């Protein structure tokens, strides 16, 4: 490689980078992600309906946290609202999530839901400070810059006569962002377990299955007493979490499918043994690891098979 070829190489790398992150492609994947995430978040918020005044208004025990980056002039936004105002804000959140799910004014709906999710986080959810609430906020932000309403939406119905019809290719950028974030989440979660002191033995699993998150099934299992199998269990968890983020990107053989199967087993076991169900939405989200072209080809194959 001579000095003269360096600019050419850099240019070609930049083109590959830009093509991978931002090329135009089929809208199906993001349309399905939008509908699935929207429905999940709608459920996540709708189940709070009976308690909304206690959770987010002066009727309950609510302690907002002002983020350090927030200008003083805007701090009034995070004052605990009166019950009627809290109900109105909550209704707006439900409406935004409903329209997001069905694909009506998709970007605006996602942006409103993003702003309100941010508001709820600092109003109250910060005390729970969970990874999934932060992931949900990020997904809503990504949906608000995506064209996820170009498939499986009311918008398509109005424009093309059917929610399943489509015309426009869309940027792959939002899909790549989601795939990258899911990868990094599994990567960080998995790799830190290699040296976190708590994760060096089966005690992690044993004591977690007797803690505040434990389900009746978990207590049923622990009632049989300690066993070295807990050490095996912890190592299995580590192996799953180390394997999953890489496997999603490997198209050779069945590695990607094995990774996704591992993710499915991992999350189902968490849901059965610990009341931590909020990450289950990651399972359908694995679809972002298929390229839109692959997914579109698969949809065509399925529809042809149905017709024949």
């Amino acid at each position: 490689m001579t000095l003269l070829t360096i600019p050419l190489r850099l240019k070609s790398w930049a083109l590959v980078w830009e093509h991978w992150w931002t090329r135009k492609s089929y809208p199906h994947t993001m349309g399905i992600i939008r509908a699935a995430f929207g429905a999940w978040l709608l459920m996540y918020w709708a189940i709070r309906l009976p308690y909304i005044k206690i959770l987010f208004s002066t009727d309950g025990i609510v302690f907002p946290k002002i983020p350090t980056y927030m200008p003083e002039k805007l701090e009034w936004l995070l004052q605990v609202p009166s019950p009627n105002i809290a109900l109105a804000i909550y209704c707006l959140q439900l409406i935004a999530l409903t329209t997001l799910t069905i694909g009506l004014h998709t970007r605006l709906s996602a942006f409103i839901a993003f702003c309100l999710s941010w508001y709820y986080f600092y109003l109250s959810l910060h005390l729970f400070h969970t990874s999934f609430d932060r992931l949900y906020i990020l997904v809503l932000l990504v949906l608000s810059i995506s064209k996820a309403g170009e498939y499986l939406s009311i918008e398509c119905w109005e424009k093309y006569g059917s929610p399943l019809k489509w015309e426009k290719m869309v940027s792959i950028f939002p899909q790549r962002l989601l795939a990258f974030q899911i990868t990094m989440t599994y990567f960080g979660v998995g790799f830190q377990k290699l040296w976190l002191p708590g994760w060096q033995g089966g005690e992690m699993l044993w004591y977690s299955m007797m803690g505040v998150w434990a389900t009746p099934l978990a207590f049923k299992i622990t009632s049989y007493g300690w066993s070295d199998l807990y050490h095996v269990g912890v190592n299995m968890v580590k192996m799953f979490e180390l394997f999953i983020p890489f496997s999603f990107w490997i198209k050779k053989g069945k590695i990607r499918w094995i990774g996704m199967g591992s993710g499915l087993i991992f999350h189902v076991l968490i849901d059965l043994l610990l009341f931590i169900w909020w990450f289950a939405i990651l399972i359908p989200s694995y679809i972002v690891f298929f390229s839109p072209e692959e997914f579109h080809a698969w949809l065509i194959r399925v529809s042809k098979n149905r017709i024949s």
Partner: protein
Amino acid sequence: MIIRIFRQALLLGYIFLTICALSYTLGRKQVPGVKWPFVTHFYAMMAPFQNYTTSNAELVAEGYRNRTWERIDLTNYLPHSRGEIAIRTRMSSFNDKKSIYTAMAEKLQTMEAANGRVYSSIRIVWEKWPKSQYGFYEGHTPDDTTRSNVTQFNL
């Protein structure tokens, strides 16, 4: 062109903050010059369930009337799962936890009075007991449970 530049800037900023978060997650090293509030959101997306305890703990609120302390059912005011209540009541977002717990006790006094239970004092206590393999409260016996007073609000 402007959109392309904006998109790449957004992407590089996002990747940089994710790397800062990963650096802290894996090595407990903060990237110099990057303020933590910008990284915290990205760190928190990759850092659940890092440790365990050998005991269970629960925040308990008690109201004083008729010369006895009565336990207040917190689930009326914190309608969450046991795990979520346990995490929320740690008030870990706040540095000055005592003032928050006192505000909580004051609020509880008002809400209980509105429900016909008028207490002259409300106290907040942490109860801690060894975990049991047979159930969450199986180890919660008078001998094994330790109580630490957090705060008390008097009318």
